[in-house]
């Protein structure tokens, strides 16, 4: 692969876990909940994926999803059932997962956390499509869960905008009282959204371990949960926008590899910061249409 192909492939590779987590968060935020605990969910997913990977990567991903769902359930218990503040609950959940995974990892794998590697899933090239010049290998010669992301975005868009449950879901995110009056149960919708978001965030974390790094490191989510929240905002709370924004963030972080390969000395931190600045501008309506957050976002 040439430099450009390598760059696009890297952008997709780093972008897809972000996209999966962000699509999950889109579901959550569309129901009027902002789950800062996504960072912890991804980390839990990575750790769960590692624990469950002993009997193959399929069970590894199941374990990752399960870990994500477990953390999400804790968040939902406080943020929905107890109507506690979502931000504070999310911060607490993040602290909890960082502490738990760090402690358990050292407890199980030794104090040094000695290098522990598992075989990664490898790539699964799609026949024909993967041979398209430039984009083919980048888009269609990736780890299997990548293709899941391609399917989730259109499915989610269809469900949110073309089905009755999707409408009720969005109504809960805009006007929970009105949604209740119309017969929907905001609490149930939000619980469901948070659990789905947890599963997707967990799988995203699992991808980091099972498809990419092949190992676990403490705090390896490295801010991806917060990045995903930025992506949701930049993607204007719409699945396709979110997918595109995730690829943009992926491209921004892939630039640093490109820079290193090319031997350029430009400060890549500027490019890493760029998507966040773009997100701020987009939210302010300075970069195209104003992004509209769900009206009840963050309200208990």
């Amino acid at each position, binding site marked *: 692969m040439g430099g450009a192909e390598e760059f696009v492939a890297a952008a997709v590779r780093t972008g897809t876990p972000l996209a999966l987590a962000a699509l999950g968060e889109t579901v959550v935020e569309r129901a009027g909940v902002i789950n800062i605990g996504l960072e912890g969910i991804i980390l839990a997913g990575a750790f769960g994926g590692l624990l469950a990977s002993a009997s193959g990567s399929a069970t590894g991903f199941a374990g990752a999803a399960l870990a994500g769902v477990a953390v999400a359930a804790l968040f939902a218990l406080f943020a929905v059932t107890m109507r506690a*503040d979502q931000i*504070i609950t999310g911060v607490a959940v993040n602290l909890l997962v*960082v502490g738990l995974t*760090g402690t358990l990892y050292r407890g199980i794998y030794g104090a040094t956390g000695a290098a522990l590697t598992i075989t990664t899933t490898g790539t699964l090239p799609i026949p024909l499509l993967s041979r398209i010049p430039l984009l083919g290998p980048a888009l269609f010669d990736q780890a299997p869960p990548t293709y899941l992301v391609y399917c989730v975005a259109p499915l989610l868009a269809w469900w949110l905008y073309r089905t009755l449950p999707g409408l009720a879901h969005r109504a809960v995110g805009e006007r929970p009282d009105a949604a209740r009056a119309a017969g929907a149960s905001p609490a149930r919708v939000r619980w469901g959204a948070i659990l789905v978001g947890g599963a997707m965030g967990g799988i995203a974390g699992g991808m980091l371990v099972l498809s990419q790094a092949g190992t676990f490191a403490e705090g390896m989510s490295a801010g991806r949960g917060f990045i995903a929240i930025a992506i949701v905002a930049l993607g204007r709370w719409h699945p396709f926008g979110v997918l595109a924004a995730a690829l943009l963030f992926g491209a921004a972080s892939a630039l640093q590899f490109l820079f290193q390969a090319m031997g350029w000395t430009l400060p890549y931190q500027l490019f890493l910061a760029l998507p966040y600045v773009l997100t701020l501008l987009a939210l302010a309506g300075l970069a195209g249409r104003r992004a*509209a957050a*769900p*009206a009840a976002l963050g309200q208990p």
Partner: protein
Amino acid sequence: MSWLRRVATVALVSLLALALLWLALRLAGLDATRALAALWDGSFGNGYALTSATLVRATPLILTGLAVAIAFRAGVWNIGAEGQLLVGAATAAAVGLLATPLLGAFAAAAALAAGALAGAAWAWIAAYLRNRFGVLEVISTIMLNFVALYAVGYLVRGPLQEPMHIYPQSVPLPEPARLPRMIEGSRLHWGFALALLAAPAAWWVLRYTAAGFRVRAVGQNPSAARVAGMVDVRRTTMRVFLASGALAGLAGAIELTGVTFALYENVSPGYGYTAIAVALLAGLDPLGVLATGVFFGALEAGALAMQREAAVPSVVVNVVEALLVLLILAAARWRGGSAALARLAGGASGSAGGNGAAGPTATERAGGGAAGSTGAALGGPVSAASAEAAG
């Protein structure tokens, strides 16, 4: 009375969290009693541990805790204390490194002032975006945290990197730009005294001044404050943001001039995020922040000792902190608590008496009102979903 009850709740919750820690360590087959003894020895056990570990750790936690507390009191969800702290630290480093020859003995004071100003300026961005464009500060402050982190990453690899260009960090500050020691032979610096002064000052302003009244009014019910005509909600929001950012920026400047002396990327181990727990545990009361800040400082200092002496990973302290927050949220939900706590736990906001155990209907009404005002602030029409529902 409510003050007493809050202290009792926090004490009870802390004991419970520590008991859970002891149990978990036992179950993990570790020497739990020895670990907790090390936790005590490393935090309050002797004068050196108290001054050089606990209070040094507590200083940035108190200041960022205050930053979060006054913001949350005004309904400003500033979770950008981390970014404001980083910007404050970077600015203090720049001033200390570049301007010390000019400033001489005033270098440290100038570095602190510049750090506070920079923190306020960083917070101003989020305030402006909220007031002008209705951008939710929860999201914008997270973005700004990352921008600040990358800016520091750039500075320590670019303009402020040490002259050998090997390590991503600056050279240590020259002596005049460092904060003097408060106690000879310990690591405790005068920054702690500033934190010690800032808490009662914030308490007094909130409680006894017109500005403080406006902050509380806006926090409790922005619509009522606006309708009553005596409070300019936007201006109050802006000022709260600036004060909050200045406190966090000051925390960063103090950390740099008093503890690390050099700028590097991990200059803050997440103080700005822990600060949210510190402020919550204090019931958003500035004087309470003083106590909870020292408590969290002790936990983190003790955790390091626990790792050294009992081979218990220090990250376990994060679990304790998280448990504290969750237990406090649950306790506030369960039996009222102070008005601020009840509001945080999602209770009704109006009742100053602090009856957080309001029924679901009252809670929802309050929530609905708040949602309405957010919608208005966003300037957005009730978006597609409701329109489609109507159609």
